[in-house]
Structure formats: structure tokens, C-alpha cells
């Protein structure tokens, strides 16, 4: 699928304030359509906040934000979202299909009658994420990796142009983590959609991503991993000496909180 020429995300001199604190100042960057971008940075730097801003859940204190060419608003079916925290505790007896189905029409009023097209669409998306075999199982019977696949399906089922994933790898072990990363990469390339993935550890992703957006100390830096995750670049960002050691294609940050 050809990527459009318009940037997927565009920020101009954006500042984010939360609880009276200035979290980000003067952010200006553009993300092209179809790019796979990892968002990194220490806690409190504004990673989740940035995603929420793109979703229209929070407003920027200053500056202009454009998502897919328009001002951010909630209910944008063009954006798929996988939040960090889920309150599924009492609802995880729902079937996998039902949870994925929310992404399609959970926001529509009424009871929702049985619809053959809807079921076909569900099957297709479940197949895409390799979750068809357990689509009728209850959510609480599934492993962490399987759950993330389903939540990914939920985010994708509305055919979004932009996918926002807030720490999807946080609670997964290495095997499941790699499974999810492979899946996300495949989806990004085959559908040609823009993917923003918030994470703490870039190394599992480093071979797959196009760019890194690093947020720290009220500042941001966007570029390829080998440009941004360097001792110079990060020291400038953090405002204090940071050393980056690279070994076997991986990069390790020393001297700063990641």
C-alpha cells in the first residue's frame, strides 16, 4: 500500500503541562506515514502523555498538533490504541472475539444484532494476528502474548492509519515479546500504517524500527537509532553526561534513567 505524502503526525512548538509541571517544551517534529517509531525515555518524560494527546484525550498547553492532517479528537476511528493499563479484571470472562469486537462497534449505541459481515471481519482480523484458533476462548484463559495479540486485533479492526501502542511489551517474557514485535512489524509493513510504540527497552526492536523518538528532561530528539542513541545526542538531551555502549547491534544507556 503506498504511503501518503502527508505526515501521519505533526507537532509544532508543542508544550505539555501536567499538574503544573512542564513535561515537554517546544516539541517540533514530523512522522511520515508508514514509519515504525519507538518512543523511549524515562518515567514521567511524557511518553504516555504524548499518545494521549494524539488521541484527543489531553490537550497541549501550547503549539499545534496534527494527527493524520487533522486536529486530535476522540472517537477517531483512524487511530488504533492499545492502552497501558486495562481494567479487564471482572470482564475477562468475555470471549476473545467479543473483546476484539469492541474495537469495531463497541462505541455504537444499541444492542448490536448478529451480523454475518461482522463475524467475517472478526475472523479475518483474528487470522491476521494468528489468533483464530483461540478466538472463542475466554480472555482469562490466555497467555500474556495471546492477549496482546487480541488487543492488537482490537486496535486494528477499524482499519486505522495510525497505531499507538503504550508499553505493550511491559509484562511479557522474552519469547512472547519477540512474538508481538514480529507481529507488529509485519502489520506495519503489510498494511503500510504508522506505528508508534512506547517502550523502555529499545533493543528487542532496534532491528525493526525506522526511527526513535527520545523524550527526556523536557526535550525530545527524533532520528534513526544510530543517530539518537549515542553518547553525544543523549547527553545533550539529558543535560548531563550519558554514555551509550553499543555491542552486537544493541545499544545500552549508562548514567541515565531509561
Amino acid at each position, binding site marked *: 500500500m503506498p504511503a501518503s505524502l502527508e505526515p501521519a503526525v505533526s507537532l509544532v512548538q508543542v508544550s505539555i503541562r501536567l499538574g503544573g509541571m512542564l513535561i515537554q517544551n517546544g516539541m517540533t517534529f514530523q512522522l511520515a506515514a508508514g514509519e515504525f517509531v519507538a518512543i523511549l525515555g524515562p518515567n514521567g518524560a511524557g511518553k504516555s502523555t504524548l499518545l494521549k494527546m494524539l488521541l484527543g484525550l489531553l490537550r497541549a498547553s501550547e503549539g499545534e498538533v496534527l494527527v493524520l492532517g487533522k486536529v486530535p479528537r476522540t472517537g477517531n476511528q483512524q487511530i488504533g490504541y492499545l492502552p497501558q493499563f486495562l481494567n479487564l479484571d471482572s470482564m475477562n470472562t468475555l470471549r476473545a472475539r467479543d473483546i476484539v469486537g469492541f474495537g469495531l462497534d463497541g462505541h455504537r449505541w*444499541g444492542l448490536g444484532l448478529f451480523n454475518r459481515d461482522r463475524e467475517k471481519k472478526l475472523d479475518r482480523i483474528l487470522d491476521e494476528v494468528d489468533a483464530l484458533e483461540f478466538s472463542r476462548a475466554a480472555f482469562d484463559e490466555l497467555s500474556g502474548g495471546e492477549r496482546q495479540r487480541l488487543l492488537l486485533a482490537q486496535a486494528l479492526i477499524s482499519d486505522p492509519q495510525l497505531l499507538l501502542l503504550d508499553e505493550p511489551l511491559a509484562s511479557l517474557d522474552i519469547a512472547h515479546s519477540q512474538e508481538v514485535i514480529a507481529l507488529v512489524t509485519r502489520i506495519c509493513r503489510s498494511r503500510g500504517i504508522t506505528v508508534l510504540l512506547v517502550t523502555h527497552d529499545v533493543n528487542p526492536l532496534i532491528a525493526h524500527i525506522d526511527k526513535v523518538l527520545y523524550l527526556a528532561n523536557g526535550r525530545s530528539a527524533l532520528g534513526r537509532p544510530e543517530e539518537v542513541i549515542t553518547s553525544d545526542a543523549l547527553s545533550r538531551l539529558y543535560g548531563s553526561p550519558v554514555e551509550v555502549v553499543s555491542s552486537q547491534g544493541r545499544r545500552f544507556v549508562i548514567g541515565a534513567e531509561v
Partner: protein
Amino acid sequence: MGLLHLLSYAFLQNALAAACSVAVCAAVIGYFLVARGMTFAGHALPNIGFAGAAGAVLLGVSPVFGLFCFTILAALVFSLLGEQVREKDLGIGVVMTFSLGLGLLFLTLYSGYAERTYSILFGTILGISPAEVRVTLASSLLTLLCIGVVFRPLLFSTASSESALSKGVPVRLLAAVFLVLTAVTVSLAVQVTGSLLVFTLLVGPAATARTVFRRPVAVIGLAVLLGEVYVIAGILLAAVTRTLPVSFFVATLSFIAFVLARLLQKGRAWAR
């Protein structure tokens, strides 16, 4: 047959009609209460309703009117307080006792207080008037319609509020609407079981059904069935024994079914 003869009485028909419609609402609302972890509302709202009903009696107005007013008001206040209700156990207990005290204050200022107190606390469905039956049926229908309309977004926001919010679901508004619908259902249920035992009709069937089924439609279906069985059996038994209140039977049946269901659940888990 004795039963057919009983059923020919108007008071019994009225009671059954009202109670059966309430049982459906209670099952549906109860499902969401359990899913949202808000079963404490099943204790707090009825007691607040008691204070409202008592106040209405004092003012010479229909108690049902007082029930509706107070519970809906309380629902709106709870919605405004939002998520900031920590230590809710203690807070709910205080609200309950305060409302009970207030209600009793109103009733003692009214001359026939003992009987009125008893009837509101423990229910008087057998004495329901045709007018009240009409109000109950209309309110139940309205409530069910509203739930039908908000069903999907409510389910979505219960399961995953952040995702729902990002998809444009008005999560906070829905929460408020749901609480108001709960208040209406509670007010209706108080007529069947009295304010002290609303929990058994509101939460009991849904909690029991949840141990058997997983999908919302199935759980709600079973909850409706259970609720209907409880109220119908309760009313018939109360009519036959003539002195024991309906609420006692509903409470007992509800409890027994719940315990059985949980035991079965444990048994199933053990067998695996």
C-alpha cells in the same frame, strides 16, 4: 386447584406483574454492578431510598416518589464524586447508617411509624395498588429500553475504559446514566423486597449466573430466569403462609442458589 384459585385474586396478579418486571431490570443492572465492582451500591442506594420513602410518608406524599427522588439524587451525587471514592467500605457503611437514621427520624415524627417502617424495610409487594403496578411496569420498560440503547458502549467502557474513551465513548456520562438507572431499579426493587434486602434480588441472580456462564447475554439470561423464580416463588409462598414476608423467601432462595453455584464452581475447578 389451590394454586389456580390463588391466582384469581387481583392482589396476587398485581404483585406478580410488578415483581416480574422488576426482576428483569434487577438482573440486567445487577450484571453490570458486579462487572463494575459496584455492588456496594446495592446496599447504599436502598438505604438512601428508605430515607426518601420515610420523608415522603412524613410529607404525606407517595413513598415511591420519595424513593425515586432520593435514590436518583444520590446517584447523581455519587457520579459527581467520580473515582475519588477510596475506602469505600467505610464510607458506604456510614452512608447506610446515616440514611437509616434519617429515615427513622422522619418516620418517628409520623404517627403510624412502626408499621410503615416495617413495610418499607421489608417490602409490601402483596399490598401494591394497581396504580403503583402501572408505574412499576412503565418504569421497568423505560429502564430496559435505556439499557438496551447504552448496552454496547457500557459493556465496552466497563471492560476497557481507556480504549473506549479513545474511541469516542462518553465514559463518564455513561457511568452517570448507569447509576441513575441503578437508582430507578433499586427504587422499584424496594417495593418487592423492602430496602434491607434489595441486594438479594439486585446482585444475587447476576452473581450466581456469573459462576455458570461467561458471555454477557447468557449471564443476563440466566440472571433473569433466577430472579423470576425467586420473586414468583416468594410471592406464592408468602400468599400461602400469609404472614411470612416475600423478601424472606427471595433472600433465602437467592442465598441458597448462590452457595450452590459457588460450590459447583469450586468442584469444577477441583476436578480439573
